[in-house]
């Protein structure tokens, strides 16, 4: 049984940039079906029977890699994980050599995470199979943005034009923020970023967002509050003076959350730094949809993988 009917003409998913709004909506619709499949006792189908999926992670990741692995397996594919962070790359093999080697093993799809922006696109030029960007440096993380959108849609409905989404924290280093800004703008949401100026990229004012440096003001009328992770090495004086100062002004606690709309969703791409960017009671509170994001992650990745390689007649 095939979940999806229409064949895709897109071989890779390298970023949200380049996706048209109807393609985004289509992926979300497909993912909605995958949610239903995933909630059945028998979660497995055989659309991708005989297909090979390789998860190629040049950067350590637990949750994203697991999510892609489960997604591939639920579709019936053979999934192999390659954690390159501690193998051939350490022996000096270049990205392109790794790509050529894996390509020779005839996979149908590569899921790739790399610490350098553009590396996944570079790799996609050198292989014959489909490639999904699972995060490239500070560039894009498209499946994260799609799963965030799916989560939002399930709570707030399909019309994003009415929504105000506030993205808080380390936008400068965040590929999640870039993909979300692109996607939310494509669907017509109003996007606001809240961060200290040291954590905002140059040109942010031209990226289709409002910029607010005071979190309470920034949360006003928010329908969705997306918190971003602050890397440990950036909290001790390099970009912000200290954890306690950051939490005071930019950490999401119950008091600050009261400035958002009462039904505002609280989101986080994980892994969370509790007490740094988000207080535990908020992360675990009634407005939090953080666990649901994880569930939607599997569904979105099923939709993406199947739309790339799961259509009949693809007999490469």
């Amino acid at each position, binding site marked *: 049984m095939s979940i999806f009917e229409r064949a895709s003409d897109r071989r890779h998913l390298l970023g949200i940039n380049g996706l048209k709004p109807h393609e985004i909506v289509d992926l979300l619709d497909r993912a909605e079906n995958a949610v239903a499949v995933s909630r059945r006792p028998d979660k497995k189908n055989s659309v991708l029977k005989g297909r090979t999926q390789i998860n190629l992670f040049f950067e350590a990741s637990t949750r994203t890699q697991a999510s892609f692995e489960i997604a591939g397996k639920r579709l019936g594919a053979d999934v192999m994980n390659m954690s390159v962070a501690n193998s051939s790359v350490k022996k000096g093999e*270049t990205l*392109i050599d790794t790509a050529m080697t894996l390509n020779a093993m005839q996979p149908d799809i590569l899921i790739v995470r790399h610490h*350098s922006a*553009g590396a996944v696109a570079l790799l996609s030029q050198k292989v014959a199979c489909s490639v999904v960007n699972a995060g490239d440096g500070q*560039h894009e993380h498209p499946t994260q943005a799609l799963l965030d959108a799916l989560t939002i849609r399930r709570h707030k409905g399909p019309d994003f034009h009415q929504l105000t989404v506030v993205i808080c924290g380390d936008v400068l280093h965040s590929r999640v923020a870039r993909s979300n800004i692109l996607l939310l703008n494509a669907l017509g949401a109003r996007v606001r970023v809240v961060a200290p100026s040291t954590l905002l990229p*140059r*040109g942010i004012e031209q990226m289709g967002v409002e910029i607010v440096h005071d979190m309470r003001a920034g949360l006003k009328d928010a329908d969705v509050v997306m918190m971003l992770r602050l890397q440990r090495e950036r909290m001790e004086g390099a970009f912000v003076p200290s954890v306690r100062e950051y939490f005071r002004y930019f950490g999401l606690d119950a008091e600050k959350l009261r400035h958002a709309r009462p039904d505002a969703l609280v989101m986080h791409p994980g892994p969370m730094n509790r007490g740094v960017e988000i207080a535990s009671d908020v992360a675990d509170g009634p407005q939090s949809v953080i666990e649901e994001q994880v569930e939607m992650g599997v569904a979105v990745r099923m939709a993406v993988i199947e739309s790339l390689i799961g259509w009949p007649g693809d007999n490469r």
Partner: protein
Amino acid sequence: MTGASRPFADDPRSMRPVLVEGARIVDPSRGLDATGSLLAKDGRIVACGSEVSGQGAPEGTDRIDGSGLTLMPGLVDARVFIGEPGGEHLETIRTASLAAASGGVTSIVTMPDTNPVIDDVAIAEFVMRTARETAVVNVFPSAAMTKGLAGGEMTEIGLLKDAGVCAFTDGRNSIADPALLRRIMTYAKDFDALVMHSTQDARLTGRGVMNEGLFASWLGLPGAPAEAEIIPLERDLRLAALTGGRYHAAELSLAESAEVLRTAKRRGSNVSGGVSINHLSLNENDIGEYRTYFRLSPPLRGEDDRRGLIAAIADGTIDVVHSAHDPHDADGKRRPFTEADSGAIGLETLLSAALRLHHSGDLPLLRLIETMTSAPARLLGLDRGTLKPDRPADFILVDLDEPFLFDETMIRSKSKNTVFENARFQGRVMQTFVGGRKVHDARAGS
């Protein structure tokens, strides 16, 4: 010129005289743009101009019909990185010279960023000797101004200059310590030595790999802010004023840098500036989707900067246009953008790319050619870049209008990292002469 290396060690008097007749002569050193002829004998120019005729040519002269062609001084390229010694797999002095000859460059000024670094007399002499034995164009080495390019101790500026080094530079590096730079400029002044300095603050640049701004932010690439170039430039120009030394800002990439230099020149400082043809031809958008061949240092900037730099050439603020020839192999470029080598080759395309600025009407031909001939020669103290009588017969014949597609098969350089692959050019070097000897003929495929 002391230490100038000649191509081939044979006796120039054994060469046949050359007479080019009926060419358009463009010689910025004399402000000359007129139809005329050139006679060269024994490796030197006998006469050149509209008053010169073939009557006086001695027997056995090679006669070249210059009609339809433009005759100009061979180019002097003031910023060329080569691989020899230490990186011969990227470029040797010989392969760089062949690339130069095919691009109409008859004199190259090499950077000291080699391995070992050109920071003492023995290594400078090695380069000059290798050039004499293997190169088909003139090679003038510059030397490091700090030992090992480490930014710590001054090199032997006097001895190096006496050995034939034409300028002092730390190549790609900028000296961070202002007190050291001040002492170098003060000391160099006693020897009338030119200090050529790259003005990129390494710490402010940080991990930056392209121009900081919206485009870099969308690509998720760390940016190098404009201020990383402007702050050291302003500092250097203050030190030049303080010391009175001859200072050349080697590699400008911003309209604002040109403005800063303009102000310093108005104050009467003995300063000059250079820009690569890349920064006059391209902007940050050419990087597109992480095209690593366009990763340069300083990075390609915005279109306003490119326009501003061209305007600064037109008004005389910027003196020199160079290729910034910087060979890298595919291994160094076929990497993610942040991990790729920085730099592009350019000897072969310098003139053809520059002629776009002539054809577009951005710059008058005489002014444009001046920045690649007499201007760098004057700064570097070379008796080149001119068609005046008794000077070495380094000249080129150019078809200003010939269109051609620059493809990889035309690259003579050992490395192929050009930013002009498959570029359409108008204007091609047909023949190149160095010391009266033909070293390139486009028709012969040499």
